[in-house]
């Protein structure tokens, strides 16, 4: 019996070690690479022979500066989230407070929209943006990102309004408030935490999006995910720059996931689990 528990413990320990190693190795590799000096690429997990801060300097302030791309990503993310909320909030509110056949079918259709592969809409979206001269603009890319964020935001926001009791709204009406006052003074302020979470989720999905950014952006509007492609040319791949910018690109992700901790499951499952 003692031997058995001991064996079990060792087995769990072994599994944990393997899991931790395979999870962290790619990241450790990136960190090592980001400090590697010229002519000394890290092999294995040993420190590169010549350590340098040059790669970091190059990416942070030098001629391979990352900030314009980061700025593009942040701006597109904010545009996307803002437009999404303006469109999704009133709809989500009315889905939550009112039931009719129209409301039900529109709400259900959001789920079907979530299923549509982005690549299947890529051709018409490209043509549409081209017609209105929105290719190579940040707002054009945000527009395409709505395809990903709108169904998500409608489901999330409806979930939040469902949690909001209608009693406060009812008593405000009895006190003589009109519908606009109820909405503006009570419902919207009370749903602020839900709005914040939804905003961050939309931002997150816009920030990591690759396909639409690839077809819509050009040099001046490249977002972070697309920037990595510019480091890989036919002649060489700038691994050190990739490593530095990869690590920098994680900063917004760390902040977002830190703030979203308690809401992750809800966002990932379209509010199926709370």
């Amino acid at each position, binding site marked *: 019996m003692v031997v058995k528990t001991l064996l079990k413990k060792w087995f*769990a320990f072994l599994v*944990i070690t393997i*899991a*931790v190693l395979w*999870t*962290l*190795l*790619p*990241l450790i*590799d*990136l960190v090592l*690479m980001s400090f590697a000096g010229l002519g000394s690429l890290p*092999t*294995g*997990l040993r420190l590169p022979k010549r350590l340098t801060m040059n790669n970091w300097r190059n990416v942070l302030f030098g001629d391979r500066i990352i900030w314009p791309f980061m700025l593009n990503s942040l701006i597109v993310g904010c545009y996307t989230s803002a437009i999404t909320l*303006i469109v999704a909030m*009133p709809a989500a509110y*009315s889905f939550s*407070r*009112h039931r*009719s056949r*129209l*409301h039900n079918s529109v709400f259900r259709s959001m789920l079907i*929209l*979530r*299923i*549509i*592969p982005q*690549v*299947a*809409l*890529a*051709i*018409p979206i490209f043509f*549409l943006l081209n017609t209105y001269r929105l290719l190579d603009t940040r707002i054009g890319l945000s527009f395409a990102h*709505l395809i990903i964020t*709108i169904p998500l935001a409608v489901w999330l926001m409806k979930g939040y309004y469902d949690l909001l009791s*209608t009693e406060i*709204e009812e008593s405000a*009406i009895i006190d003589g408030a*009109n*519908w606009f006052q*109820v909405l503006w003074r009570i419902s919207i302020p009370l749903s602020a935490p839900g709005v914040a979470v939804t905003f961050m989720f939309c931002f997150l999905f816009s920030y*990591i999006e*690759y*396909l639409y950014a690839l077809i819509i952006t050009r040099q001046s509007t490249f977002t972070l*995910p*697309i920037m990595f492609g510019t480091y890989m040319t036919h002649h060489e791949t700038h691994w050190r720059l*990739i*490593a530095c910018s*990869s690590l920098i690109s*994680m900063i917004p*992700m760390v902040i977002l*996931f830190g703030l979203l901790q308690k809401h*992750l*499951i809800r966002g*990932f499952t*379209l509010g*199926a*689990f709370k």
Partner: protein
Amino acid sequence: MVTGKKPIFTIMLIPLVVVVAIIFIYPLFRVLYLSFFDYHPVFGKEFVGLQTYRELMVDKLFLTTILRTFTYVIVVVLSNLVIGMVYSLLTYRSRKGVKVLRLILIVPILLIPAVTASSWMLLYNEQFGLINHILGALGLPAIMWLSSSRTAFPAVMVTDIWGWIPFVYLILLAGMQSIPTEPFEAAELDGASSTQKFIYLMLPMMKPVIATAMIIKTLDTYKTFTFVWIMTKGGPGHSSQVLGTLIFNKAFSSFQYGLGSTMSIIMLLIGFLLIFLIFLIFRERNRW
């Protein structure tokens, strides 16, 4: 106002309906329309009806790509579920150090997919990649992971699995933590083994959670594009081609918009069929 029948509730839907019409309905009809044409920006547009569909039905590349996409979905989703389950089992009870372990295990989700792809390309690198280095240390020959048609596809799948485990893990973990403990205590008293408790108690109680994770992950994996495109562009040859990259390739590399549209429509139809099948399998869970 609050729950009554007021036109304001219908008015509130208008922005959403308008936007959905512009970004979903119109594009869908445009793709359907284009799928009946042979359309190239230089050679012009010619109506061909169902011709492209008929050709694709016997197109070997297209059919193998569909099959490969299914392989991709099955391998990636099942691996994610199994590994996510193992991770959850290791960390669902609060013990010393478990919080740190949980944090470590969700690290891959902090990398945007483009970064995940590049960092694995670094690991797979022929000359200085860590994987070949380890092989070398073990006295094994180096492998051209991403430029050999035998290993490119599995290599990309491993990357996808690594990148999305935290997603499945977090859903399963939340589900496992919300299971009541009493049945397990009762089973303990009756002398059930850990394996028995897992198979007869844990799995059945986790079923809705597993189903949710599986459905969402299946749909997302079916759309896969980023990892394959960055790491191999579907190559070498077409050995790692999936539907997402094939359509992208036809539409935006060789500008065959008509062909790309037809493929898109077929991809959509298969997607809906997939959903329908999943709904049949998990019918008792009507939330989805």
